[in-house]
């Protein structure tokens, strides 16, 4: 039996409760992360969807940016969804001054798909080498006021694991995984399983 992993879920604002439900349903422990005291003992971090501006302010206010950057540079596995992808991006197209974590060599445009009326659900073909469960069936992805990685926004070292409509929507750079959509909302937990199984054991 492998040790039970403890997953920190950034709980400053947003859909953190849904990620916690998924993590716990997969047999791992979840810890809500609100300030640096919550960080010791976590084996990985999930950054949920929500409002990236609201989360950014709280990251600064509660002194989380530097400790998290140190952990991530040291190999802490991170999975950022939607706003989480924005907070992990090295470059932001429209508001690069937004304080954030960075570390993922991509450019991200916030709200690039438009307002809520333009939010959508799409069937995604995910291709992760060594993970045949993704080729068995498509995964439904919900894109909510989603960020977009422009086709030329993927830097070196970043693997594109899924594209939709010509744009990368799931990317990985070593210990950092970013998704433009919400895998926590559909009940299909394959991406969380893969993150817990493959990414955490590798780093």
């Amino acid at each position: 039996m492998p040790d039970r992993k403890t997953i920190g879920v950034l709980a400053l604002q947003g859909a953190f409760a849904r990620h916690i439900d998924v993590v716990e349903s997969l047999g791992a422990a979840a810890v809500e992360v609100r300030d640096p005291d919550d960080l010791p003992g976590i084996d990985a971090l999930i950054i949920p969807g929500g409002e990236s501006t609201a989360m950014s302010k709280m990251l600064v206010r509660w002194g989380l940016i530097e400790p998290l950057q140190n952990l991530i540079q040291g190999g802490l596995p991170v999975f950022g969804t939607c706003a989480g992808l924005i907070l992990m991006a090295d470059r932001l197209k429209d508001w690069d001054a937004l304080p954030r974590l960075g570390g993922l060599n991509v450019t991200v445009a916030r709200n690039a798909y438009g307002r809520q009326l333009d939010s959508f659900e799409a069937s995604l073909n995910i291709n992760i080498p060594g993970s045949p469960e993704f080729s068995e069936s498509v995964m439904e992805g919900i894109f909510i006021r989603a960020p977009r990685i422009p086709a030329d926004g993927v830097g070196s070292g970043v693997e594109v694991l899924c594209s939709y409509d010509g744009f990368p929507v799931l990317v990985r750079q070593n210990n950092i995984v970013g998704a433009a959509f919400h895998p926590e909302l559909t009940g299909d937990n394959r991406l969380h399983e893969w993150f817990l199984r493959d990414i955490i054991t590798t780093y």
Partner: protein
Amino acid sequence: MSEKIWSGRQSPVWRKNVGLAEMLKGGVIMDVVTSEQAVIAAEAGASAVMALERVPADIRADGGVSRMSDPKMIKGIQEAVSIPVMAKCRIGHFMEARILEALGVDFIDESEVLTPADDQYHVDKTAFKVPFVCGCRNLGEALRRIGEGAVMIRTKGEAGTGDVVEAVRHMRTLMDEIHALTVMPKDQLMSAARDMGAPYDLVEEVARIGRLPVPNFSAGGVATPADAALMMHLGAESVFVGSGIFKSGDPARRAKAIVEAVTHYNDPAKLAEISEDLGEPMVGINCDDLGEKERLASRGW
């Protein structure tokens, strides 16, 4: 998600709209009447803004008929901030709702704070692509609104008073009624649905999952960080603040403090730090001093 329960049978549009409500959890949605206020709200860390012409305290003071805001003002706020922009339509006024949808607002609040346009029926929210939030005082009212298509519920409280007592009453009632369903034998659920005037399928789902099938926020009377933390403890997943911010002495500071209090609602030491030196809160009206006709919460059917 099980196909047998009500929420498992809803459309992709419902799912993505509930999804936006999920994204607003753990945050504060602030009433703003100008784009300058919207910028202050966003700077303070609001997860969304509610664009309206007058905050509830002024609607109360001014009297008269209160309607949907001027589209020009809503557009100005949409241009000023990147966070979601909500706007209010009158209860049952589906054409105000159509106009707001055409403006591309991210959420419509079919709100008792405005003067009701229909004294019998609410908007059929399933006919829209834009998500709706509606107020409730109890579980029956919440489930009727969800049955009509609302993807977010907020307990009503008593808007524009700065008195949290009604918000507490409505949230406690809602949570108690949810809890009662979870321990009720299945053969009593139909009578419970009849008594509370709620769709049976939704009663059955709440009995099974122990919560509403959509996010549950709190509104109406929150004026301090402690009020916001109180509502989070009672079961709110986010807080709407109306007059409480821009009718206070130092709106920017109070807005930031309430945002921080929603995140750290379970940490009294941090709440003490957050609550320090915020200037004057809104003056407020004691809810006991309101006559039945002055109560906004009783609007809605």
